[in-house]
């Protein structure tokens, strides 16, 4: 059930360039469990949209089925949303994207939704380079069906009842880099400072952007023997370095040490400033990125931050050479060849 929040505009609330407050980016009241990581991600999305001065009605929110997939109801009330079927959001997003290239597409999914039933669609949306931000709200469990292991759950992790997970995890971020996704980040719902710039960067990126966000399930996977709990991630999280989002036209003013940062330009001219902490790591080199992830994994660490970026990719509409005008807006005059041409066709068939 979704409850509508009363929107009382408090005159003192901060506004952005569109004159909107954060409240204007909210959605219905969440019905997720108190403390669920997914709610923090919704909050970070709200903050990112506020900061980027996004017009909510030009955003489409799509999801599959799961607690995570309910989340789009809890942000951006003024956006159209589509809660589709389990694991198949990527195809719906692909079609939507082809129909109207002018909107921004936010896909929200869970680890069950993306790594099990939806794995094929996940991979092929990447392969097609659908221009969207794809959130995996990754809790290592099937929240909505009450705590079964998901395919991203770690081998050594146990469930709430002390049973062992028997299978190795699928690392969606690694897989995405391997497949050519052009913006791949991992983060943690509990780390707002890291998460928000990564989301902002993803929103301004053209092409497929994956945000694999560890998002603890307080009800079914936040116990001591879990490797997706708040505590575990706080302890084992290792960031590749800080990321700052620098809006178009603003000066970079990061706190990084001299020479220790890199800038990456995004599609609209805004920038990402990345702190460099390790010589072996470069988010523009897929091979290095993959090695670094693998290395850290061996050390028992969960590497977070912007793992890979490639700003030169063609998105699906470009690849298909689709007109700039949204297909949904084309009118009959350009769509229908008309009777004269039909007569010619008839001619050629007789």
């Amino acid at each position, binding site marked *: *059930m*979704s409850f509508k929040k009363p929107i009382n505009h408090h005159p003192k609330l901060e506004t952005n360039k569109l004159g909107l407050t954060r409240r204007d980016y909210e959605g219905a009241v969440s019905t997720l469990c108190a403390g669920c990581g997914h709610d923090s991600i919704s909050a970070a999305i709200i903050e990112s949209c506020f900061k980027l001065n996004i*017009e*909510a*009605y*030009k955003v*489409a929110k*799509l999801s599959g089925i799961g607690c995570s997939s309910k989340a*789009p*109801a809890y942000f951006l*009330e*003024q*956006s*159209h*949303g*589509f*809660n*589709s*079927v389990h694991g*198949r959001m*990527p*195809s*719906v*997003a*692909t*079609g*939507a*994207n*082809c*129909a*109207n290239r*002018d*909107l921004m597409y936010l896909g929200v999914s869970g680890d069950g939704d993306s790594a099990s039933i939806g794995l*094929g*669609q996940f991979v*092929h949306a990447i392969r*097609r380079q659908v221009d969207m931000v794809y959130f995996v709200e990754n809790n290592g469990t099937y929240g909505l069906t009450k705590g079964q292991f998901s395919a991203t759950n770690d081998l050594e992790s146990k469930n709430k009842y002390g049973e062992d997970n028997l299978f190795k995890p699928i690392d969606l971020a690694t897989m995405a880099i391997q497949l050519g996704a052009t913006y791949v980040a991992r983060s943690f719902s509990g780390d707002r400072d890291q998460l928000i710039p990564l989301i902002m960067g993803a929103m301004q990126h053209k092409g497929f952007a994956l945000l694999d966000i560890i998002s603890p399930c307080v009800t079914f996977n936040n116990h001591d023997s879990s490797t997706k709990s708040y505590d575990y991630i706080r302890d084992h999280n290792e960031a590749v370095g800080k990321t700052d989002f620098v809006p178009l036209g603003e000066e970079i003013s990061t706190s990084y040490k001299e020479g220790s940062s890199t800038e990456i330009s995004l599609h609209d001219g805004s920038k990402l400033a990345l702190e460099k902490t390790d010589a072996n790591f470069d988010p523009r080199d897929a091979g290095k990125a993959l090695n670094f992830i693998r290395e850290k994994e061996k050390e028992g660490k969960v590497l977070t931050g912007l793992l890979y970026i490639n700003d030169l990719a063609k998105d*699906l*509409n470009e690849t*298909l*050479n*689709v*007109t*700039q005008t*949204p*297909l*949904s807006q084309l009118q*009959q005059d*350009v*769509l*229908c*060849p*008309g*009777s004269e*041409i*039909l007569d010619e*066709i*008839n001619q050629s*068939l*007789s």
Partner: protein
Amino acid sequence: MHEVKSIESIQSTNDFVIKFANVNGSGSASANQMFAKAMFRMGIPVSPKNIFPSNIQGLPTWFEVRVNEKGYLGSRGGVDIAVAMNPQSYSKDVDEILPGGYLLYDSTWKRNFNRKDITVIEIPLTQLCVEAFKNPKQRPLFKNIAYVGALSVLLDIEYEVLENIISEQFIKKPALIEPNLKALNLGRNYVLENLPYPLGITVSRADKLEDKILISGNEAAGLGAVYGGATFCSWYPITPSTSLAEGYEKYAKKFRIENNTGKNLFASVQAEDELAAIGMAIGANWNGARGFTATSGPGISLMSEFLGLAYFAEIPLVLFNVQRGGPSTGMPTRTQQSDVLACAYASHGDTKHVVLFPSDPKECFDFSAQAFDLADQLQTPIFVVSDLDMGMNDWVCDKFKWDDEYKYNRGKVLNKDDLDEIENFGRYLDVDNDGICYRTYPGTHPEKGAFFTRGTSHDEYARYTEDGEVNAATLSRLMKKFRTASELVPEPVIEINGKDSCGVIFYGSTSPAVHEAKDILKEKEINIDLMQIRSFPFNLDVWEFIANHDRIYVVEQNRDSQMRTLIMAEGGISPEILRPLVHFTGDPIQASYIVNKISEREVNYKSHINAKKR
């Protein structure tokens, strides 16, 4: 050429069946199609049928052409002339020839066929081509053209007609015109110089096809989608639907290129499977584009879950199902009408879908274009269900027509101005009391009209609800919408032929056979009234026709009398009235089969009635 002795050889003009037996992958298709096209150009009704294996190369394949001046173009059975080019299948091919018929084979390797009642025509095709063409790769292709040449003399086909076809066909590769003509004449000259001609069977210009064209249903449907304003196609390859998506792309690439930019005014995506194909089409339609997908039986099964979503969330969608032989992977290269129930009731839960049944390429074109209007009007999936026979074979049909005054009906969509005037937008409010509500496209209005589309139970404002009464009201409204649909879909074509006649219900590709059967039965003094069903839900005319008949044969190409089931289930029709007349080998039904089944039972019926009267 040995002449028939034990029996008269068949004599006829513009009425015969010729069957070409070739090896799959040997390039025979274009020669055979040239033959069919020649018939068409001489104005003689013709129906070519490709009978091919689910295989790429090396297996037997046939091309059966019925030529019939009266316009009977269903499958007939029996072969008058066999062109046997595949030793693998000689025995079957020769067996099929009717007494008095003709056999043409490649006598480079001589054979004795052990049938005294046919005329055997020997032409050493391979040898001729080896002598005439240097490039060994081309020889097998030209061998096929050569037998067309031979046939042109044997059957008296106009040479200019063939010459023109060849020139048109190679208009972009003119260097190929000359060798093809050479091959054609190779066959011609051999007959002219060595064999008696013409045969007892000949053709002669008939000029019956002035307003007709020759096209496959899939190509017609693809073109219809372009005319219907489809801008998005997502599909996954599967026989026999592949050529529909390809047809769309072909025409879109011609007629849908933006003037200044050269960019595409459409997008076509080969999906990774059928689930993704329909998911994409749903996404496109939700977002305001006209999108479709095309598939065949296995795809329908895989699309079931998404179909329930589109039904319940009320998203327009056009889905072409070109049926093949089922169940399971079944007979991928044979024809059936066995997905009727799978389409009408696709998905779990209480669902019913709108289905259109074209019966020839003209209707494939018309219904394809119309389906996009219906989908937008009804905000629900529209199935267009054809089959392999009509989809992949070229059929003679009426020329396509388009009324330039006609405006697309995009259904109940609110734009920004509309929304500005509306107090209280609710996506699922039944404002007009027809079960159809108002939608908005994403990105329409900065403050109003956004809603959350979902496959879970929802209220009139598209909010999730677990209130059973609210959900039941939604389900009931969907039934109301379905009744509205019955007024919008194409009505049946009804033909009443006499008093006290029995009725015959049919749909789709059985149409030619049924019409031929009607005429044959008439000669036997059995009059039948025809109703060609063209859509589900059934409209009033359908029920009226049924009410006016006390016995009706339902002709269909499936085992379980699926259309009959649908009629009984939806209309509360007494089962004794509806008699199954089914055929499900995967080969097209023949008029004679229908005639036998009906006359048998009608004769019983009449003697029964007469007995009563006495």
